[in-house]
């Protein structure tokens, strides 16, 4: 017999402690960062262009890159097989290098719906999709998606029938995740670029679906 856990929250010491969203309490570190940046500029260790270059690199990846990978998988079954076997290698085939970790691609099927969350912080495939949406970072989404995923999905307007498994992937360590949404029924007859336009950021996280699941 293993003992029962103390509680479900790292706040177990005081479960009634209110959850505070946003960056309250981080003002000190924001100020320190700004001060350090200023000193580095003054001492000419860093030039303003250096910061601009880093920001530009952070902002270059975007949802379209992920959408192109998905559209390719919808069009080409052999690419899809490679994508699921090794997400990072398949992304590289399309010209995208996943820098921060290994990419794991999880496929939605008629019987399975996948959704991604990082309960501990905000791990996200940033080098592919750019910065995560604000709600992905919120404590509300992070705490509730592992606890009551169907209720969270319903708040996004995404209803999953009871006979379709909902699988939550907690992106808590060294992997990064991308959902491969179920293709639209008419995907075979549509052009690649047209399919790219179907894919939204929320579909790549799993909070949105292309078409409703049909019960058998």
């Amino acid at each position: 017999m293993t003992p029962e856990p103390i509680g479900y929250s790292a706040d177990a010491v005081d479960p009634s402690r209110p959850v505070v969203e946003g960056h309250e309490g981080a003002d000190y570190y924001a100020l320190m960062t700004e001060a350090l940046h200023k000193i580095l500029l003054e001492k000419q260790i860093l030039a303003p262009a250096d910061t601009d270059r880093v920001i530009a690199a952070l902002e270059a990846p975007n949802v379209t890159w992920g959408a192109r990978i998905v559209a390719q998988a919808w069009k080409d079954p052999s690419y899809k097989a490679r994508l699921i076997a090794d997400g990072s290698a398949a992304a590289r085939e399309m010209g995208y290098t996943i820098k921060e970790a290994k990419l794991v691609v999880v496929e939605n099927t008629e019987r399975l719906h996948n959704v991604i969350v990082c309960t501990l912080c905000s791990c996200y495939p940033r080098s592919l999709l750019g910065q995560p949406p604000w709600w992905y970072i919120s404590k509300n989404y992070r705490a509730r998606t592992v606890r009551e995923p169907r209720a969270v999905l319903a708040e996004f307007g995404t209803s999953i029938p009871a006979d379709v498994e909902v699988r939550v992937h907690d992106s808590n360590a060294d992997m990064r995740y991308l959902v491969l949404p179920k293709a639209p029924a008419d995907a075979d007859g549509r052009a690649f670029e047209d399919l790219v336009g179907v894919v939204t950021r929320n579909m790549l996280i799993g909070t949105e679906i292309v078409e409703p699941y049909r019960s058998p």
Partner: protein
Amino acid sequence: MPRFSPGDRVTVLDLGKPGHVRIPWFIRHRTGRIERYCGAYPNPEDLAFGRPGLPAIDLYRVHFPQTDLWPDYGGAASDTLEIEVYDHWLEPAEPLT
């Protein structure tokens, strides 16, 4: 050679470590099965303090039925959760009787 293979039943330990620990409370003491081996990575618990985190530690994805994690889970009985766990947080589960 990684200690566990896909399908092995494992129990997540509660090492009681403070700091930058990647194992959330809701999986501690819970038993799941190995979904895949992810490779070996420097230990984030050491990296967070500027140490090299070596030797690298085997990382696995572990699969749990949601109803095993949350006794009052309100979704479907077939719902599941998968999460990454480092080798030193795992022990082999007792065999099913």
